[in-house]
């Protein structure tokens, strides 16, 4: 598959603060690339640089094989952007808004009308097409925001946290819509803080921190980077201090936590950990009501890589 976006040695500074530090990556045609990172990691700056909304200090950005610039209108015609902030006209109806933004790309009236209706169907706003943005709920407004960005059927779509402050039903609708866009052949760059969305949607993930790529790969490749093997959670009614300290001696156990009748055991590596745990519980006559094991999630990997300290 050919590269739709090629970013080479991108550098962008705000004064002495280097927001993007020698960033290089490619986005392949038809894939959904997840761009992850804590606040201030450089996700939005990277996106704005690719879109030529920001002047960058050094590096090269090519989209569809051509150098991207503010006046590259032939490239822009193939791009759709859904910004994090809702960008719609309060004075126009749902249909009017989608028609306006679609009209920035599609001049033919009939084609545009068809595209606008397709977008309305995709985000499930057909019933609301005559309403004004102020009459819509937060979730519907987000869906309108997405429709405005993708109505012209772009080949490359940037989605910047499109599901922030959206209820689960709307989020589900939005994620289904994004999958459909990919199925229709669009290449998508998706930034979010929700790891479960990345796991569901993205073919490949780049984790940024301090303007640098600290990890990239498929979901499984990233999970393989995790230091922990699995987490075992056991509901235990009673546990004496001696019994609790005994868990530390079990093979491959990394850490043990016991609080409010729930015991959490983290294994660093090894196989058959759960079976050995059950055997230990039985041999020490520890009564348990529920036991289950989890593989490390992307969230675990993310926190391991970027640290657990709070960011702005």
């Amino acid at each position, binding site marked *: 598959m050919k590269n739709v976006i090629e970013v080479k040695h991108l550098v962008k500074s705000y004064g002495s603060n280097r927001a993007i530090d020698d960033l290089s990556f490619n986005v392949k045609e038809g894939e959904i690339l997840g761009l992850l990172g804590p606040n201030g990691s450089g996700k939005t700056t990277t996106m*704005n640089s690719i*879109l*030529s*909304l*920001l*002047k960058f200090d050094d590096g090269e950005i090519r989209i569809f094989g051509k150098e991207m610039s*503010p*006046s590259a*209108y*032939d490239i*822009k*015609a193939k*791009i759709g*952007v859904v*910004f994090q*902030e*809702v*960008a*719609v*006209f*309060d*004075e*126009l109806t749902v249909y*009017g808004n989608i*028609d*306006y*933004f679609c*009209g*920035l*790309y599609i*001049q033919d009236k009939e084609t545009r009308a068809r595209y606008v209706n397709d977008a309305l169907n995709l985000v499930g706003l057909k019933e609301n097409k005559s309403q004004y943005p102020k009459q819509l709920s937060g979730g519907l407004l987000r869906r309108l925001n997405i429709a*405005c*960005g993708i109505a012209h059927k772009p080949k490359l779509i940037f989605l910047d946290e499109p599901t922030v402050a959206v209820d689960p039903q709307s989020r589900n609708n939005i994620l289904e819509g994004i999958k459909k866009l990919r199925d229709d052949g669009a290449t998508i760059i998706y930034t979010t803080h929700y790891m479960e969305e990345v796991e569901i949607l993205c073919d490949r993930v780049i984790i940024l921190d301090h303007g640098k790529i600290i990890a990239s790969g498929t979901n499984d490749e990233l999970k393989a980077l995790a230091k922990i093997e699995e987490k075992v959670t056991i509901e235990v009614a009673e546990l004496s201090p001696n019994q609790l300290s005994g868990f530390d001696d079990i093979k491959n156990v990394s850490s043990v936590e016991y609080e409010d009748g729930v015991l959490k055991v983290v294994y660093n590596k090894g196989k058959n950990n759960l079976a050995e745990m059950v055997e230990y519980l039985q041999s020490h006559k520890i009564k348990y009501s529920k036991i289950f094991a989890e593989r490390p999630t992307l969230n675990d990997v993310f926190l391991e890589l970027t640290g657990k300290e709070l960011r702005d």
Partner: protein
Amino acid sequence: MTVSKAFWKIVLKNIGTIITYTIILIVFGSLNMSSDSTTQFEADKPSIVIFNHDEERGITKGFIKYLSENAEIKDEYEDDDKLKDALFYENVVAVVDIPKDFSQELALNKNPELKLRSSSGYAAEVAKVLVRQYMSTAKSYASLNLSEDDLAKKVESTLSDSTEIEIKSKVDTSKYSRATRYFSFANYSILACVITVICLIMSSFNRVEIRKRNLVGSIELKRMNGILLRNSCLYSAMMWIVYVVLGFIVVGLNEMWSIHGLLYAVNSLIFCVCATTIAYLISSIVKGIGAVNGIMNVIALGSSFLCGAFVPAEYLPDSVLTFAHILPSFYFIDTNNKIMAIEDYGSSSLLPIFINMAVIVGFCIVFIIASNIITHKKERLA
């Protein structure tokens, strides 16, 4: 096409604002015209009470007749307490006591004492002037040893003299005072309608989120700005046509269907263009839609008060008018006043008008340059 369509949809969403300011122009503009000053004058007649202790003959008779012609004589006050109250409340502004033998003594040049009580204020001063005027005229003839009747006739003849005033102006400037007041008042409505609507539209298009979306769109930014500017000018032109047509209805066809009317229309067209450039400058500075109404009120109301749209400029202090010179509204209203005063259509009459119009065009250029500089800086987010 898409941008134009969105522009006019937003205009339609603000149609209530446009109608409101147009109604304000019709209602208050008409009221302003009805308080028109004319060249016809009517003397004020003060209310006077006369107590005559003399016989009604000779000078006494003439004096009472003179006062009756030039003042309103009240005769319902017999009680002195009621008269004092009437003086206090200015129902009566002067009380004249004519002493016994007043006519005879005046004819004999004996200088009889006339008792005069008055309230304060303008009407009382008029009453005093009437009494003084009669007495001084009578006293100047008293030394001629005329009979009482002859003296009375002489005074009456002298006081009935009037001065002929000939207005040499070829044009009756009062004819155009209604049009001047209408178009001067339109200063407020033009500024309010043009600034509010264009600023609201530009604020919508300039919102950071919308602007980012437009910037990543496939329409060149310069082209989009050009479309917005053309539509803004078209909107202002439409408002101008509405106000000129209303001018024909409110002011009258006779006044408007003339070269004077044409000059008023041209002046207001230039001012509409200026209002458009002001709106562009404001929208390049102001970020939020919420601030637009506040700023519009400061500019429209402020300049209307300072430049004489609501109160004629001749009633405004010099310091205010000096300050007003920095505002385009001053030149717009001043031009309206100059158009009213035109006597002929020669270069000497028209030149000051065209200079004022050129000043307004100068303001337009300054506002466009300032707006472009600010917009250019904002063109890219970093």
